[in-house]
């Protein structure tokens, strides 16, 4: 097992290298640059700026400079948010996104698995239908609609909750963004759980356990759940990576200073270094979570072997 983990961590290095290389050149092929603003720069000042940021160098040179700096842990200054380095920007923003993402993940997984299990136990009953209709709405209503609607109701009409900002990070401020971020995922988890629970409940050993007269709750928790968690677990990997690295939409709607909006803003502003920073961040998260999921597979289902 330790060998497996080590090998995977080692293979992360070439993975990230490839990601960085492709992203670097892809960005430079895109039209526009970090200094093509709504208000274009005069030719002379543009020339000065390009020189200062090393953008007048040949592309391969810029690439190797970036690569060697990045290898030393220096991700450069942001081209657009000029007062900060990329490391500073991401370092400041990431904790907000992670906290928000963890809550949303918790809501989604706990809520989704719970609702999915209940629905499966009452398959084709009215509880099942109601829950699944709600779950479907959860998946279908986009968060850029969910966010404004929730704010309109709870912040403007009822004045119960703030309409935006991280504030002091207390419950009041987190409720709406966590719901907007978590509900669509909750719905996916609920549907996945329901589906695989129904399958698991129909398998032979569960039927046997039931026939032996074990109480249903014990059967569900100890036996069925274990087998049913596999698809849930798989989805958990990319879902966690996505939630923890922030959502540009939710962070923008609720004015949360997270890292998610940097993905979009960075790209739209052609902030090359910031985009590279976020790309590496995502790669690290994705690799890490996929690794965790793969380890959990082995623990959950002895049939899965890592060779």
């Amino acid at each position: 097992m330790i060998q497996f983990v080590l090998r995977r961590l080692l293979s992360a290095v070439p993975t990230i290298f490839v990601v960085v290389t492709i992203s670097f050149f892809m960005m430079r092929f895109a039209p526009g640059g970090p200094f093509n603003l709504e208000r274009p720069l005069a030719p002379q000042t543009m020339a000065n700026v390009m020189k200062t940021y090393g953008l007048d160098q040949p592309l391969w040179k810029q690439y190797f400079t970036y690569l060697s700096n990045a290898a030393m842990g220096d991700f450069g200054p942001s081209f657009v948010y000029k007062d900060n380095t990329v490391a500073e920007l991401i370092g400041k923003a990431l904790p907000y996104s992670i906290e928000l993402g963890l809550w949303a993940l918790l809501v989604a997984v706990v809520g989704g698995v719970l609702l999915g299990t209940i629905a499966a136990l009452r398959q084709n009953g009215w509880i099942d239908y109601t829950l699944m209709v709600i779950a479907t709405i959860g998946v279908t209503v986009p968060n850029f609609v969910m966010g404004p609607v929730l704010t309109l109701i709870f912040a403007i009409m009822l004045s119960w909750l703030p309409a935006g900002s991280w504030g002091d990070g207390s419950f009041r401020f987190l409720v709406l963004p966590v719901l907007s971020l978590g509900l669509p995922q909750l719905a996916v988890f609920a549907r996945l759980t329901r589906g695989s629970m129904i399958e698991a409940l129909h398998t032979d050993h569960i039927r046997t356990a039931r026939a032996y007269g074990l109480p249903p709750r014990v059967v569900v928790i100890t036996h069925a759940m274990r087998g049913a968690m596999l698809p849930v677990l798989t989805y958990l990997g990319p879902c966690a990576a996505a939630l923890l690295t922030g959502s540009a939409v939710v962070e923008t709607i609720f004015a949360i200073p997270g890292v998610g909006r940097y993905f979009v803003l960075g790209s739209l502003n052609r902030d090359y270094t910031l985009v590279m920073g976020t790309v590496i961040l995502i790669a690290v998260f994705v690799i890490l979570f996929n690794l965790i999921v793969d380890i959990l597979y082995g623990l959950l289902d002895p049939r899965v072997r890592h060779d």
Partner: protein
Amino acid sequence: MSLMRTKWHAALLLGSLLIGASPALAEAVFHRGNSGEPQTLDSAHVSVDIEAFVLKDLFEGLTIYSADGKIVPGAAESWTVSEDGTVYTFKLRENAKWSDGSPVTAEDFVFSAQRVEDPKTAAEYANILYPIKNAEKVNKGEVPVDQLGVKAVDAKTVEYTLERPTPYFPQLMAHMTALPVNKANVEKFGKDYVKPGNMVSNGAFKLEAHIPNDSLTVAKNENYWDAANVKLDKVIFYPSEDDAANIRRFEAKELDTVYHFSSSEIKRLREQYKDQVRVTPALSTYYYSFDTRQEPYSDVRVRQALSMAIDREFLANEIYNGAQLPVYNLVPEGMEGYGKGPVPEWASMSQIDREDKALELMKEAGYGEGGKPLNIEIRYNTNTDHERVATAVADMWKNTFGAKVSLQNSDVSAHYAYLTEGGKFNVARAGWSADYGDPENFLSLMISTNKSFNYGHYNNPEYDALLKQSYDETDPAKRMELMKKAEEMINRDQPIASLMNYANLWLVSDRIKGWEDNAVNEHLSKYLSVAE
């Protein structure tokens, strides 16, 4: 009786305790919506208005704008101009101080100007100060920075020598690029001087905290020369580019102001918030540029016809809900000494007559129904309002000429990169806002040598000559005449179709007192106060 009074006092005291803090003790905080995260707080690198709002609260230039948008003395208490208009001498206030208590000196201004023009600084807006002698040469690296025409006569007197008479120079000194920085402070911290804790500023406020994309807090600067008249204790800037979200936060009373929002909301907001909605025509023009390098747009008749067929009143009143004004010429109204610029003769015709005329011209040029087919592509940067304008214009050209019109959007960076780098197009959206209140700022866009801003590559030697003459003209009235003549040429040739005069849209809560609308869109927090 006396017992009663004590009880009453006690009740009052208790009451104020229960409320939390009595109004007199409460901090006066202004929650200022700022529609975007400032990219930098370094005056050498700022480029947009949302940065200027923050920076001008922190730093004070030689001149500043009053609440109603007039140039008034700022860090300088007075100034004089030489006979020939090329030397400006500013006298600094004796009591002007930095937030660390040190005096504001002429040397700080010299240092700041040299820093902006130094090519190593790579200031994005260095060209704004090119009227200063040798500024362009310094910025190109042709002569050393100490050759820049700025010098400290004594500790409190700073002298600017200019390339040529520049009547709008006092306005330039209020521009964000001309704001001073504290020499000792910048030398100590380098580019990190902009961080909270490091920054020393000379404006009405000083930087207290800054969480990117969340908030930027400035607190009253007790060392400011006019601190006694500053009523706010704190201003918190909230940067969010999502205008719909900003409006919701305004409605939830979390923001006192919202800057910039989609014009489609104006009607509803006006009904609900009455005069808290502020629509102020600005010194800026929304126009469509024609690519004069290629057929059929190289034909002046085609350009005229296309321009005439655009019903600007519909755009301004229906698409923008009256938040913009229809215009027919490039230079917006309200420039000192210029008045209302000349307009094309067809501007006074009714829209139907214009369309008849347009059709005639188009026929003459041999395009449209019965002639060569007219396929037009309108390029614009992604934005709801721009899309609506393009949709409406497409409909007008389709109805008038039977043209086939397609739309193409791209994000801001790609759009402007394409245009400034000389990309070919048919019709492209663009806009220009004044950096300073002089027509030159607009008219120079159309000079043939201005490769980056003259998107359509309008090339008229006569026009270029007229503008060159205006640069050398020292008599202000004559200079304006020359520029008017130049603008008439644009009106005739229509290398661009000027469509609308932008308005600045603000939501300003009733809570905020002292807010005055002005065309220059300058709203220093030091003039404002909050009512509890």
